[in-house]
């Protein structure tokens, strides 16, 4: 029986889809069977980031409406030998084409065959969000070090706490080192105390993340990129290993030792 993890943020553009694609890739690199579900019906793009767009035959709505079997709709990523699959969203319908009960059933079915199911949630807190969290038993909240993103993350955490889901974990994305050092950006400590949920990982802002997703190759496959390493570390933490947070700079080490303490406490 696998774990179903929903990746959500409330605010758009903080990197939910990029995070889903990269965590899926990184978990598959660890040898686990992973299925990604894109629930952003009408605005699908997880397939683009993974470079699987032109192999889609059936989609999520086809499965829900019974036009095909689940395994027919799953797109296999050939780069990972039978480990990484994608269930793409439909592009022609909208969020109301699916309801939470149907999603729950679908995820339960997929849990039998996969170790991890990552559900990419659309922005917002309406129908699409409700569908996305319906089948999940864990949640990752993605935010960036901006007030607006943290505010929306706070709202989402509040909603997740009311759902039947384990306490959500936090990924802080798009960290810009120089802004954080100069105090012009919220620092990691501030964000974690404000949201008071466990920190799963931090990812630096890197131009290569964008170029890689444009090429349809998740950055996590890149062996020596800092953001890629961050995603691989998060994946390992999801699998239960304890990996210290990577330090952004040498001078900041003591600051991060505090955070290591925070992580190991749980």
């Amino acid at each position: 029986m696998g774990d179903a993890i929903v990746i959500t943020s409330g605010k758009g553009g903080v990197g939910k889809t990029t995070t889903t694609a990269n965590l899926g890739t990184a978990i598959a690199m660890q040898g686990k069977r992973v299925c990604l579900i894109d629930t952003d019906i009408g605005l699908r793009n997880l397939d683009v980031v993974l470079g699987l767009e032109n192999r889609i035959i059936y989609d999520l709505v086809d499965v829900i409406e019974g036009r095909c079997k689940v395994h027919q709709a799953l797109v296999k990523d050939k780069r990972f030998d039978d480990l990484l699959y994608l269930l793409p969203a439909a592009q022609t319908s909208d969020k109301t084409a699916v309801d939470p009960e149907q999603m729950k059933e679908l995820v339960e079915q997929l849990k039998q065959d996969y170790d991890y199911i990552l559900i990419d949630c659309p922005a917002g807190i309406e129908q699409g969000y409700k569908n996305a969290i319906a089948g999940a038993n864990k949640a990752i909240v993605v935010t960036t070090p901006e007030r607006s993103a943290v505010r929306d993350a706070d709202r989402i955490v509040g909603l997740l706490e009311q759902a039947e889901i384990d306490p959500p974990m936090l990924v802080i994305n798009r960290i810009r080192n120089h802004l954080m050092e100069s105090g012009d950006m919220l620092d990691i400590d501030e964000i974690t105390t404000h949201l008071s949920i466990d920190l799963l990982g931090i990812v630096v802002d890197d131009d290569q993340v964008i170029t890689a997703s444009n090429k349809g190759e998740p950055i996590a496959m890149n062996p020596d990129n800092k953001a890629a390493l961050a995603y691989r570390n998060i994946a390992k933490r999801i699998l239960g290993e304890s990996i210290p947070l990577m330090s952004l700079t040498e001078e900041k080490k003591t600051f991060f030792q505090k955070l290591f303490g925070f992580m190991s406490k749980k």
Partner: protein
Amino acid sequence: MGNRQNVMIKGTKDGFILKLDDQCGYEVLKEELIEKLSVQYKAADDQHVISAKIEAGNRYLSEEQQEELKEIVKSQKSLVVGEIHSNVITIDFAEQLIRQREMSSIAGIIRSGQVIEVEGDFLLIGDVNPGGMIRAGGNIYILGTLKGVAHAGCYGNEDAVIVASQMIPSQLRISSLLNRAPDLDVNEQESHEMECAYIDETEQIVVDRLQVLRNVRPDITNYRGGI
């Protein structure tokens, strides 16, 4: 019913007390009250308004009945009803009183978009994040940081107070008054000691040291006994 009196009028130095029998029918009582009052004041022509207190004993009077009785008494010259006293209240009303007096509490964080509303006092063990809101009919006590909105005395109690370990609110509301945080840099406002907010004599919400609370709102102390 013979000559049993259903309405008794007693004069005291504070005014009249109208003692109403609680065994007879309401209509009978009403008629007798009208009759008694009309006899009583044949010659009373002075301008003095005398207050009358109605004692209904073990009779439950609904709002309409109370209004009706007040009207009857008022229609007699120079009488005005001060209060109506009855030994009986409805269970609904009793439960409402309990809710208004009890303190509800939550251990946790009130996050953006969450609104907590209680009729009495409220104790929060945790923070109120920006975008979160607490509305209480009574006082609000926060063991944590208030970064959102707190509305104490939201049904009109001007004596209500807001207390927080750290006050960095986006808004404070007490009764119908509102106070907004000054437009300072958020970082400059940190490292405050415990504070309380209340309405002062100038009808303004002020934030002050927690220690002043025992002087401005002595009623908050309800511990009886020697220290």
